[in-house]
Structure formats: structure tokens, C-alpha cells
């Protein structure tokens, strides 16, 4: 019986450690330095590294009425960089064109999470006149040596679909301590 219990406990631990399979249309993106992973839409294009705070950016969707109108990105801002804290980063967004800014501080997986939703005006196309509203959702998570930023951006009219990608990315996000 004790053996069975031990086996049961092991299986439970194994089950806990194995991440749930991603929902259809999503895959888990992983990188080693820093060790992070999160779910991203399968068909989106990845732009990795690039220097500075950038870890990985994804643009998509590849198809539909407005291909590549949305993005999802993960960044790490080191202490000693331009932003001393998540609050300073949030303030910088507010100062620079962010409208309808809504900020919520909460606990996420035992850590502090500052979640911001904002709208900003942006050019509709490059090299042409015309503006549109874009909605951004930001998750700012303090970590050792700085803070992580997960951000999803989409035309305001596509906010609902973008929210799904943001929600899944945040829920599945695995960060180093």
C-alpha cells in the first residue's frame, strides 16, 4: 500500500510537472537564456533576439483580413537600464501617448504582476498617412535582476482575438525565479 501511495505521489508530481498540451493552433515557445517558455499562436512568425531587452517577438496572423496586424512579445529589462522598475515603465507608457490606461496590481504564480491595458494611436500603414487605434495589454513581472514584460498589441477592433493570445501566453508563461 505504501508503495502504491509512493507511486501515486510520483505520478502526481510527474503529472504536475508536465505542462498541459497546448490548445489547437498554439505551440509552446521555449528558449534557454533566460529559461522562459510560453504558448504562442502556431502560425505566427518569430523574430528572436535582436539585442537590448528583446527576447522574442511574434507577429501574425499569417492569414485573414489583416495579416501581421498583431504582435506578441516577451522582453527582459535589466536593472540599471532605462527603467528602474515596473512602475517606472508603466509611467513611461502613460507619459507617451497611452490613452484609457487601466492598471491592476495582483499576484501571479506567487509573484507581483502589474497588468496594464491601454490604447494608443498609431500609423495605419508605413510610409502613408492615416492613423488607427491600437490596444495593448502588458504584463510586467519583477524578477531577479530586472523585470519581464509580456505584451500583446492589436488594432482596437481586433482586441477580443488578441486578448485570447495574451491570456494564453500569460497563463502558460514559465519564467526563471
Amino acid at each position, binding site marked *: 500500500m505504501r508503495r502504491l501511495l509512493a507511486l501515486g505521489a510520483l505520478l502526481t508530481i510527474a503529472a504536475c510537472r508536465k505542462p498541459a498540451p497546448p490548445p489547437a493552433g498554439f505551440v509552446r515557445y521555449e528558449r534557454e537564456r533566460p529559461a522562459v517558455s510560453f504558448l504562442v499562436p502556431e502560425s505566427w512568425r518569430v523574430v528572436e533576439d*535582436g539585442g537590448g531587452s*528583446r527576447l522574442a*517577438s511574434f507577429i501574425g*496572423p499569417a492569414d485573414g483580413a489583416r*495579416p501581421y496586424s498583431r*504582435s506578441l512579445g516577451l522582453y527582459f529589462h535589466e536593472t540599471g537600464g532605462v527603467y528602474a522598475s515596473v512602475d517606472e515603465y508603466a509611467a*513611461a507608457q502613460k507619459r507617451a501617448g497611452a490613452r484609457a490606461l487601466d492598471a491592476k496590481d495582483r499576484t501571479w504564480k506567487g509573484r507581483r504582476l502589474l497588468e496594464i491595458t491601454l490604447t494608443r*494611436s498609431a*500609423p495605419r500603414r508605413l*510610409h502613408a498617412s492615416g492613423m488607427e487605434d491600437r490596444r495593448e495589454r502588458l504584463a510586467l513581472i519583477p524578477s531577479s535582476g530586472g523585470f519581464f514584460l509580456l505584451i500583446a498589441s492589436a488594432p482596437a477592433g481586433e482586441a477580443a482575438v488578441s486578448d485570447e493570445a495574451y491570456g494564453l501566453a500569460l497563463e502558460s508563461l514559465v519564467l526563471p525565479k
Partner: protein
Amino acid sequence: MTLQRSTLLNMKLVLAALLWASPAFCALVDPARLTPFERAALEDADVDPARLTEERYALLKGPFDWRKEELSDAERSDLVLDGCRLEDDGRALCLPDKEPITGFQALSRRGRRAARHAAIERVLAVLAKEDPSKPLSPQARGYVRKIDEAHPGLLPDALLQAVSLPGANAGGAAAAFETAYLDSTRFFDGRRSLDDLRESVVPVPAPPSRGPQAFYDDAESRASAALTQSMAEELNKNPVGRELAKSLGGVLPPIVVLPIQAGAEAFYHGGRVVLSEGSVLDQLAEGLDGKRAAALKARLSKPGALAAHLSSDAAARAKVLAANEGTIVHEMTHGLQERRDVFNAEQDRGNVLSANYAEEEHEAFLTELRYLHADLLADPDGSMSDEDLSRYESLVSDFDRFRDEITRSYAETFPDGAGTLKTAREVAALRAEASQKLMRGGGWTQTLRQALKLAGLATGAAETDAYEQAYAGRMESFRKLEYSALVRQSPLVLARAWKAKAARETDRLGRVHALETALEHALRSGDQALVAELRERVDRGRRAR
């Protein structure tokens, strides 16, 4: 942006050529009668010389009439950028002799086959990332659909079917595209002499310099000289402008205004900064009532009229420059890249994918915004367009996000022409693989040809690495040396930009909102005089509201 010639495609002309070349229409021309030029023009347009009818042959030998071809905006732009002036009577008068071109000459200027080759190559790069055993991903299907929508008829039906059949498998689609790619590669390889290939292997220390620019006539030349000189004076007033002019060796790329409609209001092409005539006419007509604006536009839309106007009217030139200053700085940065980066020369030599690279856009937008920042710091009455203001806000709120947003926006705006250095490497791998395959199946000459191409690709790869390092160095240098100061100074720049935006607002609520935003920035800037002025204007606006 820089405009790639392969992105300006001729569709209808070639479709018409194919239709008219139908054997059912009338007697066929004996291919032996075709001159080498005529044969090459048909090959460029991907028209089978064996299917050319006598009637079509006669039309192609006669004067080309651009009106009868019902050219699209992009097709017309292609001819204009190629040095042609499209007359109202349908003739296309082209440099160097300004004689009306024939149908064959029009065909040979198009390069449809090269555009098709480039499109197949880009699709193959996408397909190469797919699992061959699985159905095609929506990403690959979407990419092909986007190219087909933008350039109908460019991709052959057989290739479109390979990706559009329900349940099409990635391996099958990739095989169809690879076969077409190898065929097309053989065709273009056959057009390059071994000497040409050998030369493209030898590394170049610097990009080749362009010769003097050819202008259509004196009026165009004078207008360009005057605009470029006035811009040089503007650059000299601004530290970032002086730095740019110095990097360009004091010789600015000439600014020209041409009747192009290529999806952009300005771009860098062929060593020149090209402004769209339509946008310039709108800028000149701004502030005029509807009737006078329409009359001015009608008068200046006639061939050569705008150049004559700009060459003789200093106020008109000043208005055009004021409306396009940041944009011209952006496009001149592309001119600097062309003169500075061997990476650009390697694109021209075929050793690197020719594309609009996001990394080059990052530098161009950054230079443009640094210029506008310096401009508004120095000028209390300075202004930025709404687009520039939004990009500036993005820059000061997060430099890396700013760059990523440009990359995303580029992919959205120019899906088949935009790329990153990663795309360059993916395409280089494809080209190398194709060369190895062709080498294995060929004789000595083919082996030598492909070995030279592989050596050229190695030269291109080295330049891609060198460009990437230089790019990263420039971005890091800006981040370390300038960014913090720029962010610190940004409240004053933003206050002035929003104040200028308020002056542009026609709606009272919008004006008050812009003034309130300007006041918020002014309070942070510590400029008490500006705070007092804006507070008074905000109060007045609120009372009126």
C-alpha cells in the same frame, strides 16, 4: 523604404501578350524572324515566342500605348521610375532619347520573369520551414494567397493549385515550388556569363558609386537641384542633419517629384529620393478652397508642369520641404545605407536576397525621429505629423518595442517585399541548396557556374554578418550614448508637438484635448513660459466647451 524593382510588376500587359499570342487568333510568327532583342523581351515577359501571332507581333513592334494597356498604378510607376514620361496621347517617352518606346521595349522593361523567380524563392523559403509530412500551415497558405492577391497571375496556376488543394501536403507543395525554382534558376544562370559570376565572387571594399543622375528635362533637373539645395540648408541647421550630410560626403541624393503610386508617399530609388506627385499636390493645395485647390491640381498634373512650378517658385518648394522634411531625412538615410553598406551592393550582385530589410528601416526611422527631436528642441514652433508624433511617443516609451513595431508594420504593409536578416539567411540557404543540386546534375560548365555562385553566396553571407554586427553596434551606441538624454528632453518636444497638433485640429474638442496633452508634457518639461501659455489656452478652450 527602398523600392525594389521586382515589386513593381507588370501584369496586364503580359496577360494581354499571352492572350494575343494565342495560336487560335491568327497565324503564328516564325520564331526565326525575331531579332535577339525581341526574343529576349518575350523571354523576360515569360511569353513563348512560338505562340506569338502575326497580329500581336505587329502591335509589339509598333508604338506602345500605355492607355490601351490599362496599366495599374504600380505598372505606371514602374515606367515613370524607369525614366519615362507618360503623355496624354498614350505615348511613353523614355530616356535616354525621349523617343516613344515600342511594345517590345515596354515588355523588356518589365522583368516579369525575374519577379516570378523572386516570388517563388520567397514562397520556397516559407515552405522550407514546414514539416513535409504534414498539411500546409495557414501561414504558408496565407503567404501564397497574399502574393497572388498583390500580383495576380504572377505565380503559375500549377503552383497555386499545389498549395490551395484541400489537405495539400507541405512536402508536395515544396516539391512543386522547388522544381519551378530550379527551372527558373537555370534560366537566369544561363543569362549570366562566367565572367559576371567570377566578378560577383570577388569581395568589394565599398559599394560602387553611382554616376550622375539623369533627369527627364531641364525643368525636372532645376526643380530637383533647388529642392535638394534647400534641403541641404535645412539639414545644416540641425545636428542630426549635419551628421547625415557629413556621412553622405556632402553630396545629397537628389530629390525628385514623380507621378508614382506605389503604395508609399516617398521612397528611395535609383540613387534618388522620390516624392509622390499626388502627395505633393495635396500639400501645395492645402489651405486653398475646394475650387482653387482643384484648379491648381489640374494645372500642375500635366506632364512636366509640377517640375516647372517647383523650379521657379521658392515658396512652393518651402511648402513641400516643410511637409516632407522628416520623410526626406528618412529616405536620405536609405541613400546613406546604399553608399555605405556593402550588404546593399551584395543584394545588387545577387549574392544576398534583395528586399526591404526591417533593420534598415529601424535606422531610417530612428534618424528621422532624432532629427525631428533636435528640430523641435530648437524651434518652439516646430511640428511633427501625426504619424511621426505617434512613432516618437513609441520611441521614448520603449526603444526595443519601437523597433519591433516597425518590423511588424513593415511585414503588414509590404508582405512580399519586407524581410529581416533572418529571411536573408533562409533564402541564402535555399540558393545554396539549389546550386548544389544543379551542380550534381550538370557537366563541367554547370559545376563551375554553381561553384562560383556558392562562392558568391559565401561572400554575401559574410557581408550579411558584417551588416548585422554594424547594425547592432549602431543601435547599442544610440541606446548607450543618446537614448537617456532623448527621453529626458522628450517632454518639451512632446509639448511643442502636441501644441502644433492642436493648431491642426479642426474639431474644438480635439483641439482642447491636444492642448491639455501639450500642457501635461509642458509641466514635466519645466518650461514655465510654455506652461503659462498652454494653461491659458486650455482654460479658454474649456470655457468655450
